[in-house]
């Protein structure tokens, strides 16, 4: 009997123990005509308003420039995408809002400002605000009349958000809170009119959230931070000195701020991932054009295998990440629809849907930001000496990329979170991890599979490789839990290994599902490059997983148990020989022929 059951994954995190039907996933090739037009509006906006002024934006000489650009984006309607129509927005689903930051993802500091405003700056009110708060603020946020910022981090509380020291004390007449404290790394701080501020009320142990208008007074700030990249993004340290916040501006309930912060970060993470994909696609196109133009030794550098390798790798990883990011977004939208159909209030349904797929959001944040970093790094390399020139585009791409692995929760925190959430769900009985893990353990002592393929049909071998990859993950998670029990949280290195396996499995599966569905729509002969990219990605995913799995096994088991697990791992990560070099050449040649990242 198969360990991995052939049922449809509908719950977050279940992809690890269940298989997904390709027909049930959303793929980016299915964007509607309207969505494509919105995508193009974003690209046109960048071309018209942002690209010609990138140096000016980064110089921050004109403090009015960024708010002016935000205002123009607001006029186009780009700030109200996720806000319902009754508050002046367009009420679009999550996947569409993700597509918009994907389209704007090559907008450098501008997209940081826009994402902070539309995401963490607006959604706390949309999801947690009461009707009066929504009526008062959402229309102004949708139009861009008010620009917003999110104030969580403090000098001594970053990843440990609940350690924040900012306090809110109720006034004697009970009409307002007096807020005191300092916040740092506040994106849009310099021009925001509205701040979502996290602070503890009186002696509370847990944060509360507040809607703070700049006009309330008692707000001062330091100069702009000098940063490695996204230099045009306003980043300030903000001080609250007896800032008078009316009691009606408490968001949701007292002591619910941490919950708000965590849930808002889920949507922040998945949107960051789609923005990173947009950045990666743009870097690939820039690199491909340069590889076609730049001539050395009498031919364009794109004709050399070493460059083809880089282009194909950049494209395959981006393609895979893009597949996973919109699969996730669509799953969140579907969960939302079903909760609403069950009678849940829309904002609550949105939150529950995000929470359901919080593991995938964290996975995608890590993956998207690391793909972007890879693309930026290789983009510089393809440009050679020009890559290091501040007058060529890769300089900015490289510097701006780096922050993505840090904000919205560092990639380390997010890796830990994926496994932490998964194990908590297993303990609560929401996901049956131990059952399949035990089956895998039994399989280890059974007669090995001699490589006779019992499966037939499209991508049978690839699907088997994926099933096996999941089995390897289950085998090691099961062993790690048994060995360390409650102390597993202290073994961060092993948790990182497990997270890497989980990430590779999810992304590789998403690429496979995308290509399988695409072939159904367009026919196998029209999807050969996508198939190559998927196979390249899968092969490397299994190799990467195998490497980190070995490390984990060495750390978890000894003696006979270790030998048995290593043998199991070998069996679970066995791949048929695949000519990666030729596949990469086909992918690169396609990109060079199209002169862009052309998979849409």
């Amino acid at each position: 009997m198969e360990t991995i059951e052939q049922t449809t994954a509908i719950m977050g995190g279940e992809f690890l123990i269940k298989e997904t039907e390709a027909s049930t996933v959303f793929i980016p090739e299915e964007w509607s005509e309207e969505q494509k037009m919105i995508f193009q509006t974003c690209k046109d906006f960048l071309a018209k308003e942002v690209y010609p002024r990138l140096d000016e934006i980064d110089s921050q000489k004109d403090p009015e420039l960024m708010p002016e650009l935000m205002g123009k984006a607001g006029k186009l309607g780009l700030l109200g995408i996720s806000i319902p129509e009754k508050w002046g927005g367009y009420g679009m689903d999550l996947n569409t809002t993700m597509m918009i930051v994907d389209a704007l993802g090559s907008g450098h500091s501008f997209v940081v400002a826009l994402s902070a405003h539309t995401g963490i700056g607006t959604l706390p009110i949309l999801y947690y605000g009461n009707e009066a708060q929504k009526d008062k603020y959402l229309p102004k946020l949708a139009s861009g009349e008010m620009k917003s910022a999110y104030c969580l981090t403090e000098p001594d509380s970053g990843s440990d958000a609940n350690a924040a020291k900012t306090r809110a004390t109720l006034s004697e007449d009970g009409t307002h809170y007096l807020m005191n404290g300092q916040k740092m790394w506040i994106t849009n701080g310099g021009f925001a009119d509205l701040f979502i501020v996290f602070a503890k009320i009186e002696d509370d142990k847990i944060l509360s959230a507040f809607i703070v208008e700049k006009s309330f007074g008692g707000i001062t700030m330091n100069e702009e931070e000098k940063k490695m990249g996204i230099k045009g993004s306003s980043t300030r340290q903000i001080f609250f000195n007896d800032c008078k916040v009316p009691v009606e501006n408490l968001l949701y309930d007292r002591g619910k701020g941490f919950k708000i912060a965590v849930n808002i970060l889920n949507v922040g993470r998945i949107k960051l991932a789609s923005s990173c994909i947009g950045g990666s696609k743009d870097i690939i196109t820039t690199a491909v054009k340069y590889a076609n133009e730049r001539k050395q030794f009498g031919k364009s550098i794109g004709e050399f295998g070493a460059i083809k390798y880089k282009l194909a790798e950049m494209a395959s990883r981006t393609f895979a990440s893009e597949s996973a990011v919109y699969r996730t977004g669509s799953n969140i939208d579907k969960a939302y629809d079903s909760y609403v159909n069950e009678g849940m209030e829309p904002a609550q349904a949105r939150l529950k849907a995000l929470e359901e797929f919080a593991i995938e959001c964290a996975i995608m944040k890590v993956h998207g930001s690391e793909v972007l970093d890879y693309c930026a790094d290789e983009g510089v390399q393809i440009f050679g000496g020009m890559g290091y020139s501040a007058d060529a585009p890769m300089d900015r791409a490289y510097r701006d990329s780096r922050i993505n692995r840090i904000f919205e929760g560092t990639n380390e925190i997010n890796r830990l979170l994926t496994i932490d959430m998964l194990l908590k769900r297993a303990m609560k009985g929401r996901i049956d991890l131990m059952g399949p893990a035990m089956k895998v353990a039994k399989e280890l002592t059974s007669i090995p599979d001699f490589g006779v393929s019992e499966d037939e049909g499209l991508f049978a071998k690839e699907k088997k490789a994926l099933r096996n990859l999941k089995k390897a993950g289950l085998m090691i998670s099961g062993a790690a839990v048994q060995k360390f029990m409650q102390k597993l949280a202290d073994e961060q290195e092993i948790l990182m290994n497990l997270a890497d396996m989980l990430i590779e499995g999810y992304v590789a599966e998403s690429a496979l599902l995308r290509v399988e569905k695409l072939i159904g729509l367009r026919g196998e002969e029209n999807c050969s490059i996508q198939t190559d990219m998927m196979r390249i990605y899968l092969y490397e995913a299994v190799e990467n997983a195998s490497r980190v799995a070995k490390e984990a096994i060495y750390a978890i088991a000894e003696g006979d148990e270790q030998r048995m697990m290593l043998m199991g791992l070998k069996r679970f990560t066995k791949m048929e020989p695949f000519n990666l070099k030729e596949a990469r050449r086909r992918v690169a040649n396609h990109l060079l022929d199209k002169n862009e990242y052309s998979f849409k």
Partner: protein
Amino acid sequence: MKILVCITHVPDTTSRIAFTDGDTKFDSNGVQYIIGPYDDYAVARAVELKESQGATITVVNVGRVETEPTIRKALAIGADDAIRINAEPEDSYFVAKQIANVAKDSGYDLILMGRESIDFNGGVVHGIVGELLEIPSVSSVMKLDIDGNVAKIAREIEGGKEYIELEMPFVAGCQEPIAEWKIPNMRGIMTARSKPLNVVDPVDTDHLDKLVRFELPPPKGDIKMIDPEHMEELVSLLKNEAKVL
């Protein structure tokens, strides 16, 4: 005021151009299509006129069903309705004849289009439409203001500008900077689908020419850098090697 704006559906300016069928057919595989950039300016100016003094705008395109996303983009920018003449836009005369047929009894005050399409660059459709409708046509219009029934126009001429005034109706071939380039906003995009897009059959038209084949320009040769101090070397190379002087 009733404005008709004629738009083309052309390959994006960065498309790689290739031909099939013995160099007689454009290879549209994987090509992204856009509103002709000059036509885009015509649409934008029409929308500005509508906003400043009121007008109804109809867009018309000669093309098959695949041009409808392009047409809807014009609706998203601000046109009120659209007509698609269901035919391949075979040549300038054919297209002009179709447009004239749609326009002839509809009482348009202004017929705007780009000064040329960016695929086959004939640049004569506005002239032929004007002739067929027996109204004036002007092209390379850079500025267009309407005062009552009179249009004040600046058009580009060799080395300068010409300022003219004429009464409506007329046909104008437009170019930048006649209007600010317009990006469709969310409201426009969301309402575009509900605006009428009428499909009409083409009228029979004589074919005045026949396509023989296309040819791509020769690939760019190597570049030689000449020191600005040595102009005589440049002159010599242009004379003897490139043979252009």
